[in-house]
């Protein structure tokens, strides 16, 4: 039996980011004293403007950049040890993938099993079963023999989700999973993430899709060069906090009257906040009402 597939009870991996600062060699301080922690069984949205340090935070959690201060612990372990134990799975942004690379759908999903294989990376029966199961779970078994460039936007996303499933990590990082996908695919992804949460995993989603955040994230981390606020969605994902995180970068439309671009939330107005993607609609008291499915 593959030890990585069967988790001994009581080894659920929490994520803690403790006072992490990241400075790049050119002296740019991308992140200062960022702290938050997540318990197993959480879907957490990572929200902030471009250049706010979201991707730096992702890189620090994956061990791609070394924090100049602070530390990241996954299941109580250092990042490198957690990676060796296959605890961390990741789904890249669609723009970062070379879709003309000569690999098929099944090959990509099999890459999720590399950490479970020996040095030569020769798949065993357990690896093939995990790949088939993952492909079936995202509904891509029929397309397993396609070259990845022959897939639609939504199918492409599913392939990389299947890869993360096949790997079976405790912590799943998704970078902008909703960019360029239709509503059907988005709903399917959200459904899958909810299932994974119920299995006790931690899912950390970096997203611009503000309107969807309250519908599937239990927790939110607001980032702007540091962690501005972190905690349960109803407490953190509020109008004032969002304005603090986004400042003037957010498009804000108050109804019925159009508010001035940088005006603070005005009493008595329904507010629509939009950061590129599906806008968020808030009640006059800052409660989240829902989302618009069409951009303004």
């Amino acid at each position, binding site marked *: 039996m593959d030890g990585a597939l069967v988790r001994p009870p009581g080894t659920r991996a929490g994520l803690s980011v403790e006072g992490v600062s990241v400075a790049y060699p050119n002296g740019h301080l991308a992140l200062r004293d960022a702290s938050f922690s997540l318990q197993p069984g959480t879907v957490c949205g990572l929200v902030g403007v471009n250049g706010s340090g979201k991707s730096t935070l992702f890189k620090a959690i994956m061990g*791609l950049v070394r924090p100049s201060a602070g530390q990241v612990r996954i299941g109580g372990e250092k990042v490198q040890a957690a990676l060796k134990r296959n605890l961390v799975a990741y789904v890249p942004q669609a723009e970062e993938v*070379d879709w003309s690379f*000569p690999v098929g759908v099944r090959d990509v999903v099999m890459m*999720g099993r590399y950490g479970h294989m020996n040095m*030569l*990376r020769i798949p065993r029966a357990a690896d093939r079963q995990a790949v088939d199961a993952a492909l079936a779970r995202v509904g891509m078994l029929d397309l397993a023999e396609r070259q990845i460039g022959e897939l639609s936007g939504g199918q492409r996303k599913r392939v990389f989700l299947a890869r993360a499933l096949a790997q079976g990590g405790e912590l799943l990082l998704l970078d902008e999973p909703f960019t360029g996908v239709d509503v059907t695919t988005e709903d399917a992804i959200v459904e899958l993430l909810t299932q994974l949460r119920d299995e006790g995993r931690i899912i950390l989603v970096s997203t611009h899709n503000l309107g969807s955040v309250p519908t599937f994230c239990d927790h939110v981390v607001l980032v702007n060069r540091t962690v501005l606020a972190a905690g349960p969605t109803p407490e953190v994902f509020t109008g004032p906090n969002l304005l603090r995180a986004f400042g003037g970068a957010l498009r804000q439309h108050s109804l019925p009257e159009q508010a001035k671009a940088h005006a603070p939330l005005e009493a008595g107005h329904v507010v629509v906040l939009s950061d590129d993607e599906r806008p968020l609609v808030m009640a006059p008291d800052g409660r989240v009402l829902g989302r618009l499915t069409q951009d303004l």
Partner: protein
Amino acid sequence: MSELLIPFEYDYMLRAMGIAGLVGAVAGLLSCYVVLKGWSLMGDALSHAIVPGVVLAWLGGIPFAIGAFASGMLAALAMAGLRGRTPIREDAVIGVVFTGFFGLGLFLLSLFPSNVRLQTIIFGNVLGIADADIIQMAIIACVVALALGIWGRDLMLSLFDPVQLVAAGGNPGHMRILLLMLLAATAVAGLQAVGAVLVIGMLVTPGATAYLLADRFGRMAAIATFIGASTGLVGAYASYFLDGSTGGSIVALQAAIFVAVLVFAPKHGIRATRRAAAKAVGTPA
């Protein structure tokens, strides 16, 4: 007809065809990684940068492969060291370093103009190489093939999605160093087959050709290896009759195959893509 079999009657021809085929096969396999990494210029740089090492190794009386490999690694280090420490773009850094090394090599070479063996480093002379050199080339080729057998999948993953390699507990930085070392080693082996100037052809063309023919890495690698092996063998064979440069005939043959594939490849060839485009807009091709 029997005239065509004459090359097979000479030991030196058999050895030349054998070693050219072996080095061609390994260079062809490696060329897949080079093409997918986008390192054609880096390969060219390394193959030129090994020349001063060869000259110094000969002067010092040590095996040429050791000097060449050391020289190539030194150039790679110089390029890696300059990258990120200066505002100069990477292609300019590569250009400066490799021409610097190559120039130094040519200068050293000009100090000892009578040495034919050194001249063959630049242009290759697979028909006239010593047994000791053949053994060196064969060992290098086998080591490179073995390394790709062991780390090939990780290397491929580091090209496709380096972050996933990290997630699997691997290290893309190590893979980068591995590819550099394999490139330098293969360039050393290719030296005597086709010469320092043309070895980059063997390290790029088969992979580029196979890329047009295959949608899976395994097939691409098999096709590139086959092209490398067969052109090495045929090129060495042909040079017996043409009495010309073996390196030239091997690399020219590879280029000819590339052009044919570029036009006629069933899916990614120019004709096929044109037909597909015509079909998409609904006009007959």
